[in-house]
């Protein structure tokens, strides 16, 4: 990083006063998290907050969890690159979540069964082996998906505060934030998580509403829309145009991923449904949260668009760093870093501290829930069934705590080591697909088709492993293995297609085809295998279609 770049990016309004706001906020979060640990007595308390969530608190905790800093960052990146065309994801998320809330699709029956995790549902519907395999697939996809959270979140802090990104700053910020989240999540479990989520919701919502208003005031409402029209043309508005980087197949993928998966299949979202005080509350919770699902995409996208407008028209020094004029020159900064640098420039002292606290709130509320969710799945759905459910409640809670630390250390390592170059949203969609493609088919067939069998379930789960083909390091390994190189180099599928004249192919479109193809294949295999290899005996606890009363789980 040259001195000039350090100087350009170091120009931020972030002051000691703002650091004070951030530190006070973090201290309050920690104290609350530690105070409520006395309420944890069993696994239901630790993993599902005693199943006592009412509607408003449910909305707060869903919003806090699903509006993470990584979500804000990758949506801002999307807005910076694609303009208002990226808003289609927000609209889809809102409409699909609302429909899920009104109909109770998946979530109502899962809550009625009183399972603690989705693999526990697999176990009750398809038997213990499917439960363990499903737990492994969920953990693999989920933990891989979470791998870049820490790094991307820390990039925001580094960008907005003007710290140098190379060197000590990023690892130190990553380690500090992780340590903080680990402490209160380990001790308080889901009770800590939902209460800190509430506080994080308050700070986050007020912060982004205030920040958005100020950004519009600074840039001008009409100027934002007009500048995107001038610089990006119709591609900046129309997502059905393949030149926007999206296209119809991408929109269909988003109906599946940002819509159905985001609210009704993704384990951390479903965990809120399972923690609700009744199945009826779940439906209300999701209907109201549909607006949050839209905002979590739309507002960060809008901030990314504003960063684009600011950099391209008002900050010539930054424009040179993000889009250098010289032909063939490589940008020093990526679209991911545009939004924090932009906010650091335009927000005044005090407000930038509040907004940073809000973003850290977003960071923490996501990490705590994810860490708890994956570790609980390993304990409940992999280790406990393999130990033939002989583990006591104390042993389960202890193991879950250990696993929270182990997963935390993994994401610290992965955040520093991963070298993939795809857009973050793409990485998330693909890595999460290892879990959600199989989960979608198992939930759909398991809840709504009586003839679905355990063989079909295994086939569908294994099919979702094909989603790893969406990751750039894997694509390069595949093209190298089959000798599909370009200029002697291993390349991604996108680059390979472009080298063969398919110029409108983008990485997003490759991922969309891959995901939709895998989901279709998994569905076909579930149907065919279930018909060819029906379960010979009824699985104990199967009564899903009518919503049986109590999950086993091995603990209360």
């Amino acid at each position, binding site marked *: 990083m040259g001195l000039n770049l350090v100087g350009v990016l170091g120009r931020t309004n972030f002051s000691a006063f703002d650091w004070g706001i951030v530190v006070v906020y973090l201290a309050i979060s920690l104290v609350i998290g530690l105070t*409520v640990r006395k309420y944890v007595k*069993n696994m239901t308390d630790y993993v599902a907050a*005693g199943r006592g969530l009412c509607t*408003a608190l449910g909305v707060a905790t869903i919003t806090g969890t699903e509006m993470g800093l990584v979500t804000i960052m990758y949506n801002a990146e999307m807005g910076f690159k694609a303009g208002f065309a990226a808003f289609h994801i927000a609209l889809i998320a809102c409409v699909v979540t609302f429909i899920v809330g009104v109909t109770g699709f998946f979530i109502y029956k899962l809550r009625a069964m009183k399972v603690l995790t989705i693999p526990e549902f697999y176990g009750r519907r398809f038997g213990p082996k499917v439960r363990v395999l499903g737990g492994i697939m969920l953990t693999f996809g989920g933990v891989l998906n979470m791998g870049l959270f820490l790094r991307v979140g820390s990039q925001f802090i580094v960008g907005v505060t003007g710290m140098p990104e190379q060197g000590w700053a990023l690892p130190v910020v990553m380690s500090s934030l992780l340590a903080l989240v680990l402490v209160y999540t380990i001790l308080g479990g889901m009770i800590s998580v939902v209460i800190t989520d*509430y506080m994080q*919701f308050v700070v986050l919502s007020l912060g982004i509403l205030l920040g958005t208003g100020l950004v519009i005031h600074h840039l001008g409402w009409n100027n934002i829309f007009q500048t995107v029209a001038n610089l990006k*043309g119709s591609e900046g508005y129309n997502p059905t145009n393949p030149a926007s980087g999206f296209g119809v197949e991408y929109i269909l993928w988003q109906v599946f991923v940002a819509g159905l998966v985001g609210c009704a299949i993704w384990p951390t979202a479903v965990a809120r449904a399972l923690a609700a005080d009744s199945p009826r509350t779940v439906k209300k919770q999701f209907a109201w949260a549909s607006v949050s699902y*839209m905002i979590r995409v739309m507002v960060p996208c809008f901030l990314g668009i504003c960063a684009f407008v600011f950099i391209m028209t008002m900050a010539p020094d930054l424009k040179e760093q993000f889009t250098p004029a010289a032909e063939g020159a490589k940008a020093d900064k990526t679209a991911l870093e545009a939004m924090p640098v932009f906010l650091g420039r335009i927000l005044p002292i005090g407000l930038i501290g509040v907004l940073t606290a809000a973003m850290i709130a977003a960071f923490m509320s996501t990490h705590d829930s994810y860490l708890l969710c994956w570790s609980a799945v390993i304990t409940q759905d992999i280790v406990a069934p393999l130990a033939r459910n002989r583990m006591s*409640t104390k042993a389960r809670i202890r193991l879950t705590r250990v696993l929270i630390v182990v997963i935390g250390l993994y994401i610290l390592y992965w955040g520093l080591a991963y070298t993939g170059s795809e857009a973050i949203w793409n990485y998330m969609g693909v890595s999460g697909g290892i879990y959600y493609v199989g989960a979608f088919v198992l939930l759909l067939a398991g809840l709504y088709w009586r003839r679905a069998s355990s063989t079909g379930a295994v086939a569908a789960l294994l099919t979702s492993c094909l989603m790893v083909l969406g990751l750039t390091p894997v694509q390069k390994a595949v093209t190298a293995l089959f000798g599909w190189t370009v200029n002697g180099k291993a390349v991604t599928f996108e680059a390979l297609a472009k080298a063969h004249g398919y110029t409108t192919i983008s990485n997003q479109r490759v991922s969309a085809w891959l995901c939709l193809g895998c989901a279709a294949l998994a569905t076909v295999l579930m149907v065919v295998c279930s018909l060819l290899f029906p379960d010979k005996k009824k699985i104990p606890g199967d009564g899903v279609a009518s919503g049986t009363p109590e999950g086993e789980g091995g603990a209360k």
Partner: protein
Amino acid sequence: MSGWMLLWKIVFVVGVVVFAGITVWVIVAGFRDIKRLLQSIKKSHEEEVQTPTEEG
């Protein structure tokens, strides 16, 4: 393009206004829910002490 521009303007304004309303409701009602949550957990623990169950 003007049709898309108008659509995204309406979606943004309506979304932000509704979210602001929900934020106020969640702040007020969510605080009440936290008190209920802690009371219900406490109550269920007291009931467990009276009728202990085997776990694990």
